[in-house]
C-alpha cells in the first residue's frame, strides 16, 4: 500500500482513457500542484514539530506536549496563530519587494521539488539535467533573502542579508563539487539514472573514501546553504535579533520559516538521492536473497527514512554547536572546504576513469 510505484502510471492511463491528451496533462498538472502544496504544508508541520522534539530531547526537557496527544497539533495551533496575526509592513520599507521576498524564497523551494524522486517511478519531472537544475535553482534563494534584507529598511536585516549573500555564494561551490563527484561516477545528470546506478550498492559505500569525504562536505555545505546553525549567521538572533526577517510578522514570517524547513527537506532528499540511493533499498552486490528481502520494504519508506535521518543529523548539529563568526565561516569555505573538494573531485575522477569503484 505504501508503494507508490504504480499510482502515477494508473492515474495517467485512466486520465487518458477519459479525456483528450491535453486535458489529461492539465488535470495532471493541477493534481501535482495540489499535491506539492499539501506536501509543503504537511512537511512544515511535521518538521517543525520534529525539530522541537529533537531539541527538547537533546536539552533534557519534554518539548511541546499540551496540544493533542504528545503535542502533535502544536504546530497546527502555531500556524493558526500566525495566520491570525497582523502582517506589519514598516513605514519606510520598499513595500513591493518587502511583500514579494517571502514568496520568492517559497517559490524557489517549490521549484526544487520537481526533480526529486519520492519513490520508484514517482517523480514530478525527470529532467535530463536534474542535478544541474537543482544546483542552479537552489542558488536563487539568496535573491529572496537579499530582497527581504534590503526592502525591510532595517540595519539588522541588511547585515543579515549581506552575510547570507556571502555565505550562500561561497558554500554553493563546495555543495556543487560534492554533487559533481556523484555525477562523475554515474556519468549522468539525470536523477533516475543516478538512482539506477546505485542498484548494487549506494555510492556512499561503493565509492571508497573520496565519496565519504564528498558526503561530509555536502552535509556541511548544505547546512550553511540553508542558513542552519552553526551557520545561521543570517539570522544570528544574539547578534542581529532575527537577521533578514527581523521586520516580518504573521504569515510572511511563517513563509520564511516554512521555506527554511522545506529547504532542509529538499537538500536532505538530494543528499539521500545522490549518496544513499534515494528510494533504492539497501542492496549489497550480488547477495540476491538479501537484496530481495530489502525490496519488500516499500521504496517510499526507504526514501523518507534516509531523508529524515539526514534531517535529524542537521538538527543535531544545530542544538550542539555554537555559531561561527562571519570571517571564520568564509575562511572555512575558501581555505579548507573548497581546496579539499577540488582535490577530492580529482581523486573521484581518477577512480571513475580507472574503474576502481565497485
Amino acid at each position, binding site marked *: 500500500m505504501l508503494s507508490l510505484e504504480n499510482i502515477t502510471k494508473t492515474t495517467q492511463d485512466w486520465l487518458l482513457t477519459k479525456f483528450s491528451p491535453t486535458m489529461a496533462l492539465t488535470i495532471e498538472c493541477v493534481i501535482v500542484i495540489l499535491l506539492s502544496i499539501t506536501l509543503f504544508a504537511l512537511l512544515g508541520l511535521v518538521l517543525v514539530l520534529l525539530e522541537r522534539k529533537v531539541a527538547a530531547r537533546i536539552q*533534557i526537557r519534554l518539548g511541546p506536549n499540551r496540544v493533542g496527544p504528545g503535542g502533535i497539533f502544536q504546530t497546527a495551533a502555531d500556524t493558526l496563530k500566525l495566520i491570525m496575526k497582523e502582517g506589519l509592513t514598516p513605514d519606510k520599507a520598499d513595500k513591493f519587494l518587502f511583500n514579494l521576498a517571502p514568496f520568492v524564497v517559497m517559490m524557489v523551494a517549490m521549484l526544487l521539488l520537481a526533480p526529486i524522486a519520492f519513490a520508484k517511478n514517482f517523480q514530478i519531472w525527470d529532467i535530463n539535467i536534474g542535478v544541474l537544475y537543482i544546483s542552479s535553482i537552489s542558488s536563487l534563494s539568496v535573491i529572496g533573502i537579499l530582497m527581504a534584507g534590503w526592502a525591510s529598511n532595517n540595519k539588522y536585516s541588511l547585515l543579515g542579508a549581506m552575510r547570507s549573500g556571502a555565505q550562500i555564494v561561497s558554500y554553493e561551490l563546495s555543495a556543487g563539487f560534492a554533487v559533481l563527484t556523484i555525477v562523475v561516477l554515474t556519468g549522468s545528470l539525470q536523477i533516475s539514472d543516478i538512482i539506477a546506478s546505485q542498484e548494487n550498492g549506494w555510492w556512499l559505500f561503493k565509492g571508497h573514501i573520496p565519496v565519504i569525504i564528498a558526503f561530509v562536505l555536502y552535509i556541511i555545505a548544505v547546512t550553511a546553504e540553508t542558513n542552519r546553525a552553526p551557520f545561521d549567521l543570517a539570522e544570528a538572533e544574539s547578534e542581529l535579533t532575527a537577521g533578514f526577517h527581523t521586520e516580518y510578522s504573521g504569515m510572511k514570517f511563517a513563509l520564511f520559516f516554512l521555506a527554511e524547513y522545506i529547504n532542509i527537506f529538499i537538500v536532505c532528499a538530494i543528499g539521500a538521492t545522490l549518496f544513499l540511493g534515494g528510494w533504492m533499498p539497501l542492496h549489497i552486490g550480488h547477495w540476491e536473497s538479501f537484496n530481495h528481502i530489502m525490496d519488500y520494504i516499500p521504496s517510499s519508506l526507504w526514501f523518507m527514512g534516509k531523508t529524515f535521518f539526514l534531517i535529524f543529523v542537521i538538527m543535531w548539529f544545530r542544538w550542539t554547536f555554537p555559531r561561527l563568526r562571519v570571517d571564520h565561516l568564509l575562511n572555512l569555505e575558501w581555505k579548507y572546504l573548497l581546496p579539499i573538494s577540488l582535490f577530492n573531485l580529482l581523486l573521484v575522477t581518477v577512480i571513475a576513469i580507472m574503474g576502481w569503484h565497485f
Partner: protein
Amino acid sequence: MYNQTEIIKDTTELGPEGELVINIGPQHPATHGVLHLVVTLNGETIKKIEPHLGYIHRSIEKMCESLTYRQFIYVTSRMDYLSSHINNTACALLIEKGLQIEVPERAKVVRTILNELTRIASHELWIGAMAMDLGAFTPFFYAFREREMITDIMEDTCGARLTMNYIVPGGLMYDIHPDFQTKVKAFVKQFKEKVTEYEDLVTGNIIFQSRTKGVGVLTAQDAISYGCTGPVARASGVSCDMRKIAPYDAYDRVEFDEVIETTGDSFARYIVRVKEMNQSIRIIEQLIDNIPEGEFVGKTKNVLKLAKGEFYQRVETARGELGIYIVSEGATTPYRIKFRSPGFSNLSVLNHIAKGSKIGDLMATMGTLDLVIPDIDR
C-alpha cells in the same frame, strides 16, 4: 525624555565614511536586560561602542538615604540580583564592623556556604547565557539543571529563590533548614558528576574556542587602569580576590586557590569562572560538615545607629569587588551611601577591548564580561 533617542537618531544616519550605527539594546536578545549599546560599525567591524545606561536606574543610593540600617539591606538584593546573598553580606559586614557586633561562628560559616552557593548559581547562569550568546542553546538547559538545585536549597533556607534577604546585621534571620546539610551535600555530589557534561559540550568545542580565543583581549595594565575586578581581572593576571586580600566571614579558615589566568581573552575569562565554581565546591565541602552549633544571630540593639564617620566594606561577588561606602552622621539612616558595583567598572572597559573586532566578537566579549544591568544602573 526623549531627547536622548533623538541624538541617537541623528547618529544613525550614514556618516561620511560609510559608517553604520546600530543600537544593540535596550531590547535585544544578547544584552540580558536593558543595556543599550550604540555601536558604530564599518561593515562588520566595530569602530566604537557607546553604552547608554539608566533604563533600570532606581537611584538606590538616594533611596538608601531614607532607609534605616536594617531596611537598606533588602534593597541591595535588587542590585546584582544574581549574587543577592553576597550583597546582603556586604551590608551586614559593614554594619557589624561599624557597631563592633560579635557574629556567632555558626552564622559566619552558613553565610560563607550560602555565598559560595550563590557564586556557583551565578556562574552557572552565566555559562548558559554566554553559550546562548554564541548561538549554542543546549548548555543553557544543562547549566540550569544544577542551578535549580541551588535555588531549591535557597528556597528551603531563605524562603526565596532569587532575592534572599536572609542575612541581617549580626548573623542570619532564621536558623538553617534541618535538611540543609544533606541537600547541599547532594548538590555537591551531583555538581561534581555533571559539571563535566557541559564542559565537554562547551570547553572543548572547536567552534567555541575559535569564537573566544584571542577575542576581547584585556591586558593586565588596562584591567587595573579600568578598575576591573573579579573574573574579568583575574583572567588578565591581576590578583584581586577580596576573599584572599581581606578575608571576611569564614574565608580565613578555608583552603582555596585564587584562579588566575594570564591570556586575558574571552576564553580565559570562561576558564576562570569554570575553575572558580570548582573552588567554591571545595570551600563548601570543607565547611558543610563543620557548621558549629550555637546561636545564629548575635545580640544587637533594635535600632542601629552607626557612629559619625566613614565606613567601607569590600566583598567578592560573582562579578567582582563590591564596595559599600557609607558616610554616617550618627543618625539611624546613612547620610550618604555609595555602591561601587563591579559591573559598572567592567562595562567601562567594553569599548576598549571590543573596538576593531567583529559584531560576533562583541557578543563573546560582552558575554564573558558578565554584565548584570541592575548592578550597573543601581
